[in-house]
């Protein structure tokens, strides 16, 4: 087992463990903290995949923004202290569990079956000065998605404001 594999296994365990803890946690706040653990694990995987930029972005956006936002939302709801958490799940949680685990089994099975049929390239991607490459791509090939993404953010901003603003 190489160092890389070791890190991968550790990060994956952290990630999946946190994810499981997240969906089973009683308190929403604690669940959100576990979610942050998952995000961190994902960031590590990104870095393992030579996508350091994305790893950082993952931390910046997911942990720094989305997770904080969710924590905020939790603190604006009744069970802010997490002292009296009601039932975690809706009545149909066993069904959800069955569905999710079946789906997991099916996908994993299919992935195993697909095995090495993926058209895996021999070379690792060229990753010198990644930020610059990405920036250039955003201004050329990916210009339209870039612009649309700004539209999405603007709309979300306006929308969130209209919906929550106290008058």
């Amino acid at each position, binding site marked *: 087992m190489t160092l890389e594999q070791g890190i991968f296994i550790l990060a994956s365990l952290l990630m999946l463990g946190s994810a499981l803890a997240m969906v089973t946690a009683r308190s929403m706040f604690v669940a959100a903290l576990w979610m942050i653990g998952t995000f961190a694990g994902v960031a590590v995987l990104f870095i393992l995949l030579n996508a350091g930029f994305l790893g950082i972005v993952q931390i910046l956006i997911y942990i720094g923004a989305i997770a904080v936002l969710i924590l905020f939302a939790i603190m604006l709801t009744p069970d802010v202290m997490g002292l009296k958490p009601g039932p975690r799940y809706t009545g149909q949680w066993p069904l959800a569990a069955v569905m999710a685990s079946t789906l997991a089994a099916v996908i994993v099975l*299919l992935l195993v079956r697909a095995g090495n049929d993926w058209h895996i390239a021999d070379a690792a991607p060229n990753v010198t000065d990644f930020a610059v490459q990405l920036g250039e791509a955003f201004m*050329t090939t990916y210009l339209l998605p870039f612009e*649309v993404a700004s*539209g999405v953010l603007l709309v*979300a901003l306006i929308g*969130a404001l*209209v919906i929550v603003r106290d008058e």
Partner: protein
Amino acid sequence: MQINWADTSFLLAPEILLTVGALIVLVLDLLIEDDTSPVLPGFTLLALVSAFGAAAAHLVTGVDDVALFMFAADPLTHFFRLLGIGTALLVLLVSVNYVQARSKHTGEFYSLLLWVTLAVVLVAGAHDLILLYLAFEFLSITSYVLVGWLRDDARSNEGAMKYLLFGAISSALMLYGMSLLYGATGTTRLTEIAAFFTIPETQITGLYSIVVPALVFLLAGIGFKISLVPFHQWAPDAYEGAPTPVAAFLSVGSKSAGFAVLARVLLEAMPAFQEHWTSLLVVLSILTMTLGNLVALRQTNMKRLLAYSSIAQAGYILMGLAAYSAGATFPADGLSGVLIYLVAYLFTNVGVFIGAVIFEQATGSVAISDYAGLIRRSPWLAFTFVVFFLSLAGLPPTAGFVGKLAVFYATVAKGLYFLAIIGVLNSVVSVYYYFNVIRQMFFMPAPEGAERVRMPASMGLALAISFVGTLLIGFYPEPFLNLANMSRDFISALPLL
């Protein structure tokens, strides 16, 4: 990479006009203190009309097909541009009074209406999974906001919340499917994906077992947008909670966008899997129209009724895609049937929603029982309702008949007789609940002291447009059939720009 900005801005003129319009409306809203000022809707109208004009000009000039930054400016896109912007125009006309009476944020509303139109157009033209997903979510997020626009109305909040939760889950599923598709082919471009599956099958056998589930995931996401059973649960709640003009837009605008995506993904990227998706679509279509119609029978709220009705309609439209056959002559190819149906559906369904808006604006009610005696209170409104319902039920000589004809024709031509029979029987079932509303309007006496239903001018105009459109397509479908015939061509190999 050299970009010709003049060409680009011409090809993307409708999109650019919508974007600029939306931004200017936002700024104007800051400058204008008066929420009821006609400047804002006027400017929005201007933006929409100019975008519509630009889109129509493209159709006339027949610009060369090119893919710009993952956006395909092909006839199919032109078609959905016209459709999306047309819907927005009608919706705008009815929104003005409605929103002014219910919300303080009118400027933002108009701006969002332009954004959501832009999203529809982008979705229709997206030619790359990345842009497709992004535009799709653009449309979704904008729709969530619009549904939840009446922030002090618990129903609006609730509808938006449910819409969002369902939407987010199904778009995550779709995204997973997209990622598998990308992984299998190594590209996100639809045509390149299709090209990948033309390589000898022996080299990719294992991938087939990946791509078929990916297809299912994709259908889940897109099925949500067009409210296919079983991804439809959000629709009645969102429609009921949403401001009624927004519900009109959802039922037509974003639904057509969903069909555009479905057509592009299935026909452009996955023609190699046609036998798989055809059977899936057949099942989904049967489920959708049957369940939609059956549940609609029990509705007492106009908006929920229309929600279920539009679920059922989605089932009919889906028949066209299920019956797609690439080489068939017009209109046996299925896709053109979908397009004709969508045009007919635009006028009809927006029309019926406009009627509901007018009624709601005048009486404050959306209960079907309150429509009693409408013929006494507003004969014209009642009469247009009849035409719209006939069209929804697919009776001649209305637009809905032409649409159903085209779709059923493709189904018969493809040999999917069972599907066709289920389809027509469903349209018979639908008559029952459509005519239940008509029954209220015509057979029941108006309540004591009920006043005439007043119709603001802009709403009346919108109603008239959809009414004329519905009948025009019914009586003289030729230009619309030609439009559909023209638009069903889309690019197989795009030059990159």
